[in-house]
C-alpha cells in the first residue's frame, strides 16, 4: 500500500463523488427504506416516466409492430397537421373558454359560500348546510351526468320548470350555445360545498382577537369582513388561483365524454376529448400523442409561470 489520502468528515476521499464509503454507510443505515422505495419508484417509472418516453411517437409514425424506437421519424409533421387543421382553433377556444368561465363563475362560488357560512352563528344550522353541500361531490360522474341529461331533456325537470314559468321548452343537449352554461352550472352544483372546506379552514385560523379588537374600535360586521376576514383569506385564494390559472389549458375529458354528442361538438369538444377520439377510437396514435404533448407542454409552462409571477408579486407560491 502506498500513501493513503486522508478521509474527510463524511468518511470520503477528497474528489471521490459520490463517495463509496458514504453510500455504503447510507445503505447500511436505511437498507429497508430503500427496499420500500423500490416498488414505489418502479410504479412511477413505469406509469409516469415510460409514457413520457412513449410521447416520442409524436415525432414518429408509430406502428405497434416496430415499437416506439423502431418507428420512422417524421419530425414535426403531426404538429403541423394539427396547427393547420380546421379543429385547431375550435379546440383551443373551447378549452380556454370553459376554463375562463370556470375562473369567473366556479372559482369564486366556494369563497362566497365560505364567507356566508362564516357569518352563520347557529352551529347546528351551519353544520347542516355543510353536510348537505358536500354530498354531490361523492356521487359518481356517471350518475351526475345521467341526472344532467335527464333533467335537461325535452320533458325533464328543467324544462318542466321553464314551462311552468310560461316559456318555451328548450332541447338543451342539442344546442351548442347551452353546453358551457350546463357544464359550469353543474360543476358549481357538484363542487361548491367541497371547495368551501379549504376556505373555511383558512377562516378558522384567523385570530379571534382581531375581531375583538375591531369591535372595540366600533367596526360592524361589514367592516370586519372587509378588513379582517378578506385579508385573512387572501393567501389561500391566491394559491388556489395560481393552481387554477396553471390549468387554464386543461379540461378533464371524463365529464365531457359522458355529456357531449356530435350535435354540440362546436362548443363541447376540447383538446383532451379530441385526443381521446383520435387516439383511442380512431387509433391515430402518433397524431393524438402530438396533440396531447402540445397540451402538456403548454400546461407545464402555465403552471411554472403562474407560480413565478405570484412569487415575484406576493411572496405566495407553490414551491
Amino acid at each position, binding site marked *: 500500500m502506498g500513501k493513503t489520502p486522508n478521509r474527510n468528515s463524511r468518511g470520503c476521499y477528497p474528489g471521490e463523488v459520490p463517495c463509496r464509503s458514504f453510500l455504503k454507510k447510507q445503505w447500511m443505515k436505511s437498507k429497508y427504506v430503500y427496499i*420500500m422505495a423500490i416498488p414505489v419508484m418502479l410504479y412511477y417509472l413505469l406509469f409516469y416516466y415510460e409514457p413520457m418516453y*412513449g410521447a416520442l*411517437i409524436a415525432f414518429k409514425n408509430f406502428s405497434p409492430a416496430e415499437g416506439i424506437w423502431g418507428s420512422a421519424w417524421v419530425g414535426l409533421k403531426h404538429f403541423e397537421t394539427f396547427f393547420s387543421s380546421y379543429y385547431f382553433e375550435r379546440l383551443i377556444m373551447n378549452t380556454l373558454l370553459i376554463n375562463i368561465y370556470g375562473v369567473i363563475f366556479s372559482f369564486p362560488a366556494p369563497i362566497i359560500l365560505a364567507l356566508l357560512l362564516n357569518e352563520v352563528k347557529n352551529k347546528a344550522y351551519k353544520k347542516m348546510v355543510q*353536510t348537505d353541500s358536500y354530498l354531490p361531490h*361523492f*356521487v359518481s360522474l*356517471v350518475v351526475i351526468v345521467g341526472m344532467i341529461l*335527464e333533467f335537461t331533456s325535452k320533458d325533464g325537470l328543467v324544462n318542466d320548470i321553464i314551462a311552468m314559468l310560461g316559456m318555451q321548452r328548450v332541447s338543451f343537449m342539442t344546442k351548442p350555445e347551452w353546453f358551457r352554461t350546463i357544464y359550469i352550472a353543474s360543476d358549481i352544483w357538484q363542487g361548491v360545498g367541497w371547495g368551501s372546506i379549504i376556505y373555511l*379552514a383558512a377562516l378558522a385560523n384567523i385570530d379571534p382577537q382581531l375581531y375583538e379588537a375591531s369591535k372595540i374600535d366600533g367596526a360592524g360586521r361589514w367592516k370586519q369582513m372587509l378588513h379582517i376576514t378578506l385579508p385573512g383569506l387572501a393567501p389561500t385564494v391566491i394559491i388556489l388561483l395560481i393552481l387554477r390559472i396553471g390549468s387554464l389549458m386543461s379540461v378533464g375529458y371524463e365529464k365531457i365524454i359522458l355529456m357531449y354528442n356530435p350535435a354540440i361538438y362546436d362548443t363541447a369538444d376540447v383538446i383532451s376529448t379530441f385526443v381521446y377520439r383520435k387516439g383511442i377510437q380512431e387509433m391515430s396514435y402518433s397524431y393524438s400523442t402530438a396533440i396531447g404533448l402540445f397540451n402538456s407542454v403548454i400546461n407545464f409552462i402555465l403552471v*411554472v409561470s403562474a407560480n413565478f409571477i405570484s412569487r415575484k408579486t406576493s411572496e405566495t407560491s407553490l414551491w
Partner: protein
Amino acid sequence: MTIKRRLSEGVFDIINYFILLLLVLITLYPFLYILFASLSDPLKVLQRGSLLLWPEGFNTGAYKMVFKNPMILTGYKNTIIYVVAGTAINILMTSFGAYVLSRKDLYGRRFFMFMIAFTMFFSGGLIPLYLLINQLNMVNTVWAIIIPSAISTWNLIVMRTSFEAIPDSMFESAKIDGGNDFTILFRIILPLSMPIVAVMILFYSVGQWNSWFGAMIYLRERELYPLQLILREILITNSVDSMTAGLGGDIEPIAENIKYATVMIATVPILMVYPFLQKYFVKGVMIGAIKE
C-alpha cells in the same frame, strides 16, 4: 351599537340564512325528485310535467326490473372486487411511498420527492399510457383497473405530511429495540396514523367505486364491467332495451322510470354511509391543505 346598524345586521342574517336554505334545497331536490319519480306511476309523471313533491301513484315496478337485469348484479360484484383489491394496493403502496419520503435523514430523499412531484406538473399524456397498458398485456384483466392507479400523488403527499408529524423519538426508540423499517411502519407508524389511514381508505375506495374511464378503454368483456360502466349504458348511451324488451306498447315512460330507479340503486349505498364518514373526508382535505 346603534339601532340602525343592529337592524341592518338582522336583515343580513335573515337573508343569509335564506340563501343557505335555498342552497340546501337546490342540492337535495334533484335527488329527491329522482327518488319520487322512481317510485311513481310512469305515465302520471309524464303527464304531470311539473315539480314532484311526492311520488305520484306508488309503483316499485322499475326497481323490480332493474334487479332482474343480471348486469346490475354482475357490475355490483365486480365493483366490490375492484374496490377491495384496489384499495388494498393503494394503501400499501401509498404508505411505502409516504414512509420513504418522511425519513428526513434519507440520502436521496430530495431526488425521490422531485421525481414524484414532477409527475403532478407534466405527463406523457393519455395515449402513450394507453399503448403501454396494451403492451403490458393488462388489457381485459383486473390489473388494468387497479395497477395504473396504485398511487395518487396527492394522497401520497398528504400521508407523508401526516407521517412527518410523528416525533423522531418514536423511530429512534423502535430502532434501538431492534425493529427494522418494515416493522416500524406496520407496528408503529400505521397504528399511530389510523385517522389518516381511514381518510385514505375512504378517498381511494370512493375514487375506485366511481371510476369508469379506465374500465371503458381497457375492458372488452362485459362480464368484467364495473357498476359504473353498466350505469353508463343505462343512463347515457340509452340501452334500456334489454330490460324493456317484450313489454310492448309505449315503453318510453317505463324506460325513464328504469333510469330513475337505477340512479337510486347506484347512489343509495354512498348516501347511506356518507353521514358517518363525512368528518373523515373533511379531515383529509385539511391535512392536504397544509403547505410545506
